[in-house]
């Protein structure tokens, strides 16, 4: 990864909200940001992938601006900024790529030049110190924006290597859409914050974000309810693929499933 922003400031010792991919779900993002405000978040981060999946991607930008959210570029954001032909998610299976292409084409059509230019200014990662620990926030992994860190597919040894190479005590990432965290031998922690825009493939329509309370280096995963029915209706009005709408209503993933490791796939319905 090339562009890393280093932050400093007393507010970093306060409560920190870490939000994963919004995927154009502006209603869920609004609810998540509101929840973080109620908790008294001193700083809010979004780990990228603003577009894709949901409707009207332009609605995400003013929400991030209004709450002063520090945003990292995801693969989606990079692709839009560089006008690439696909989302760069890193899927390897044709069935996954089919739906990935549909949603990228939709988001691409609805992204303005001004938005692309802004996406082009986003860093690939953010570093700061908090409570004596070195944090590295990234989208996929510290070394690749589109690398998937799934809980059941990452050995301790691998995560320790990533942390060592990145000179970090805590790695925070998203990109998979499923939240998890692991405390590794020696105290290194990896937090995948999941997604604020897509349910966690558990049959529940709510979304999730990660919360670092003041003085805590362990993340709490916060479920966020929002008006998912209104989101589903908006997606239908925009004629987005029916399986996407089904995920918003039912909380089970219906597409881009082939990339899931066995354990994560077995937990879902499809």
């Amino acid at each position, binding site marked *: 990864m090339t562009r890393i922003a280093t932050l400093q400031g007393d507010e970093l010792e306060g409560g920190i909200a870490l939000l994963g991919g919004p995927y154009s779900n502006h209603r869920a993002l609004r609810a998540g940001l509101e929840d973080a405000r109620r908790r008294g978040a001193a700083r809010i981060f979004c780990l990228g992938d603003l577009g894709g999946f949901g409707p009207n991607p332009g609605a995400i930008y003013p929400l991030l601006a209004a709450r002063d959210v520090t945003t990292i570029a995801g693969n989606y954001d990079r692709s839009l900024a560089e006008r690439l032909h696909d989302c760069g998610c890193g899927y*390897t*299976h*044709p*069935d996954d790529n089919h739906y990935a292409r549909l949603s990228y084409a939709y988001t691409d059509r609805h992204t303005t030049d001004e938005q692309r230019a802004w996406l082009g200014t986003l860093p690939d990662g953010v570093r700061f110190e908090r409570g004596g620990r070195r944090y590295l926030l990234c989208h996929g992994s510290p070394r*690749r924006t589109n690398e998937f860190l*799934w809980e*059941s*597919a*990452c*050995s301790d*040894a*691998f995560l*320790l*290597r*990533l942390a*060592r190479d990145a000179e970090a005590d805590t790695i925070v990432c998203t990109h998979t859409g499923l939240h998890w965290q692991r405390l590794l031998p020696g105290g290194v922690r990896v937090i995948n914050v999941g997604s604020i825009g897509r349910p966690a493939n558990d049959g529940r329509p709510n979304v999730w974000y990660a919360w670092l309370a003041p003085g805590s280096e362990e993340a709490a995963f916060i479920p966020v309810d929002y008006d998912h029915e209104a989101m589903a209706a908006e997606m239908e009005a925009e004629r987005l693929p029916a399986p996407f709408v089904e995920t918003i209503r039912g909380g089970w993933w219906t597409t881009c499933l*082939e990339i899931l*490791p*066995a*354990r*994560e*796939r*077995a937990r879902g319905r*499809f």
Partner: protein
Amino acid sequence: MRSSIPLAQAPAVPALALDTVWFQVAGTLCNLRCRHCFIACGPTNRAHDYMDRESVRGHLREAESLGVRDVYFTGGEPFLHRDLVGILDDALRIAPTSVLTNATLLTPALVRELAALRDASRYSLEMRVSLDGITPEQNDPIRGPGTFDDTLRGAQHLSDGGFLPIITVTQTWDDADDRRLREGFHALLRARGIERPRVKILPLFKIGREASRTRGYAPEELLTPAHMDGYDPWLLQCSTSRMVTSRGVYVCPILINVPSARMAETLGASLRPFPLAHGACHTCWATGATCRN
């Protein structure tokens, strides 16, 4: 037919990291003798032999110290190895683990043992099952008489045991038929009670027995430095993985019968650039395919 070029002219792939370690745990021994097998396995081929559990353990320990992400077991047919369950137990303590099998030797009792290992580990245990057609008429001429039914029976045992096997198909047809065949596999598996079929299609490597079945590589299918211009080496699995066999550490799972692809005795010593001087390298380069899941 020439299937490699002088090393000096070949572009080199860097060793970026050791993410994946493969074990040719059953060597080149297999109960089948598929006509397209790119490493020409069979019941009597001891080019690479069984690896004993202690030796696998040693390599696993080294892999762990190098930060390995995941581990794969293949052969030949891994379930011919009498210590395989123990070896998988060792591996699953360290990393996510996949087994590539023809599934013909799987019994309900064996699947129960595998399920117990799976459930005891924090990591995924993936079962990859090879099948090469959606009818016996398509599959059996390639993989042998009766193998269609034997393999599907094994896959059903896995499914009954709560596994979601990945059916792995070698592409022996034209690209144009891709979508239709993929759907055909899904329909076949559903009809056999495998509710959530997972299918992976691998390109055909024109080496081993396959080279004589159809044809080998032509000279223009060899990579030159120009091929690697602007090409992300990350896309080649040899930039992030290695293969361990009874004879040492090889660059990748595909070239284990190429003497110059043997890189070292240990994983650590094998992490250096490798000249992409082989016809099979062209297939990897052109398809971006990986033997990983």
